[in-house]
C-alpha cells in the first residue's frame, strides 16, 4: 500500500467510533503515567534545582505554572477552532467531539493563567491586578471561552450546538490576533514600556528545561482530559449503535 493511502486508511479507521473508543482507552493509561512523570520532573526541576532569579528571587518560580497554562489556553483554543472548521466543512463528527471536550479544560487553563499571573503580580508590583497587555488579552480569551461554553450549553440539539459553537470558535480565532495587538498597543500607550519585562526574562538554561517539561506535562494532561471526555461524548452520541450495546451490557 502506498504511503498516501495508508495514512488515509488510518484516518478513515480513526473515523469509525468503535475503533477510536478502544484506541483512546488503550492510550489513556500511558498518557496519565507520562503526564505524572513529566509533571514531577518539571516541578522538582523548577522548584529545587533552578537558580533563583537575580532580580525577583524565588518569586519567579510561579513562571513554571503561569507560562505553560497561558500557552495551553491559546493552544486549546486553536485546537477547538481547527476542529470546528473541520466539522463545518467535512462534517466529521469526531472533530466536533474533540472541540466539545476541550472547551472546559481550555477555560480552566485560561483561568489558571490569570490566577497565577495576578498572584505573581502581588510580590512584583504590590497589586493583585495589573492591566498588563498579556493578562488583559488572557482575560478576554477567558470571555471567549465562557461565551463558547455558554452557547453550547444553551442549545439542546447536539448537532446545532456543534455547528453554532464551531462558527463562534472560528470568528473568535480570527479576532484573537486583533484583540491581542490592540491590547498590546493600548498597553504601550498607557504605561512606559519598562514594566513589560514580565513575560520571559532572559531565561537561564537550567531554568528553561523545567519550563519545557512543565509545558509538555500540561499538553499531555490536556490530552488525557481530551481522551476521557471524547470517550464519554462518543458513547453519548453512538448510544443507539450495536457496539455500544455490547460494550455496555458486557462490562
Amino acid at each position, binding site marked *: 500500500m502506498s504511503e498516501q493511502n495508508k495514512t488515509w486508511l488510518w484516518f478513515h479507521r480513526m473515523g469509525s467510533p468503535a475503533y477510536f473508543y478502544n484506541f483512546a482507552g488503550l492510550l489513556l493509561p500511558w498518557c496519565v503515567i507520562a503526564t505524572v512523570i513529566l509533571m514531577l520532573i518539571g516541578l522538582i526541576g523548577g522548584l529545587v534545582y533552578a537558580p533563583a532569579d537575580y532580580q525577583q528571587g524565588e518569586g519567579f518560580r510561579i513562571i513554571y505554572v503561569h507560562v505553560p497554562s497561558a500557552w495551553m489556553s491559546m493552544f486549546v483554543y486553536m485546537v477547538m477552532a481547527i476542529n470546528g472548521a473541520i466539522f463545518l466543512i467535512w462534517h466529521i463528527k469526531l472533530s466536533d467531539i474533540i472541540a466539545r471536550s476541550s472547551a472546559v479544560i481550555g477555560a480552566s487553563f485560561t483561568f489558571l493563567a490569570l490566577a497565577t499571573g495576578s498572584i505573581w503580580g502581588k510580590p512584583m508590583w504590590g497589586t493583585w491586578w495589573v492591566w498588563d497587555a498579556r493578562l488583559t488579552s488572557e482575560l478576554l480569551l477567558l470571555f471567549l471561552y465562557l461565551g463558547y461554553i455558554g452557547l453550547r450549553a444553551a442549545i439542546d440539539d447536539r*448537532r446545532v450546538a456543534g455547528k453554532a459553537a464551531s462558527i463562534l470558535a472560528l470568528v473568535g480565532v480570527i479576532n484573537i490576533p486583533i484583540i491581542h495587538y490592540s491590547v498590546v498597543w493600548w498597553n504601550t500607550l498607557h504605561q512606559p514600556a519598562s514594566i513589560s519585562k514580565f513575560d520571559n526574562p532572559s531565561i537561564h538554561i537550567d531554568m528553561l528545561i523545567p519550563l519545557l517539561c512543565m509545558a509538555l506535562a500540561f499538553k499531555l494532561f490536556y490530552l488525557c482530559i481530551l481522551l476521557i471526555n471524547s470517550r464519554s461524548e462518543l458513547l453519548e452520541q453512538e*448510544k443507539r449503535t450495536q457496539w455500544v450495546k455490547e460494550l455496555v451490557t458486557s462490562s
Partner: protein
Amino acid sequence: MIFPASGDVSVLSTENLSYEINDKLILQGISFSIQSGQVLFIEGENGSGKTTLLRIISGLMQADEGHINWNGKTIEDERIEYNQQLTYLGHSTGVKAELSALENINFFSALSGLAQKENPQAAMKRVGLDSYQNTLGRHLSYGQQRRIALTRLMMEPSQLWILDEPFAGLDKKMIHDLQSLFVKHVNEGGLLVLTSHQHIELDRVETLRIKLEQ
C-alpha cells in the same frame, strides 16, 4: 402552461433519511421518489415528524443520515437551482405584521426571484382578500394570513411545492379552490409534497402516500 424551465421530467428522491430528536428516532429510513405530475402525501398524527420531514426535504434542516436529490444532484450542491424551483409554506405564514397585504405579496415574489405568473391583485381576488389589499398584516386574522401565503402558489411558477397542512384554517370553498389549484399544478408537470390531518382525495392524480408512525 408547461414548465418551460425544465421541460423534461424533474425527480425529487430521498435515500433512507433518518433524524433523531433527544434520544427518540422519529424518522428512520425514509426513501421515496416522486417526479413531475405526482403528489406525495405524508400522513401521521401530530408529532410523528411530518413537519420535520418537510423541513429536511426543503433544506431548512439537515438529516442525520441519508440525503435528498433533485434531478440526480444533492440539494446541498444545487441549492440555488433547487431554491428557484421550490415554494415552501410552513405553519408560520411569514406575513410581516408591519407590511400591508400587498407589500407582503410583492416582497415574497421579489424574494423568490421568479417572474410573477399572475399580478398580485388578481391573486388576492382569487383568495377573496381583494378588499384587504392595504390592511396591515397585524390586523389580518390567521386564516387571512394563510390565504396571503397561499397566493404565492398562484404567483410563483416554481415546480416543487412543499406545503405543511395547507388546508388548516380555511373554509370549505377555499379548500375546494385549493384542490383544483393542486390538480392543475400537478397536471402541468409540477410536483407536490404535502401533509394533512384529514384524509384528502385528489381525483385523477397519481398520489403516493407515506405513513409516519408515532
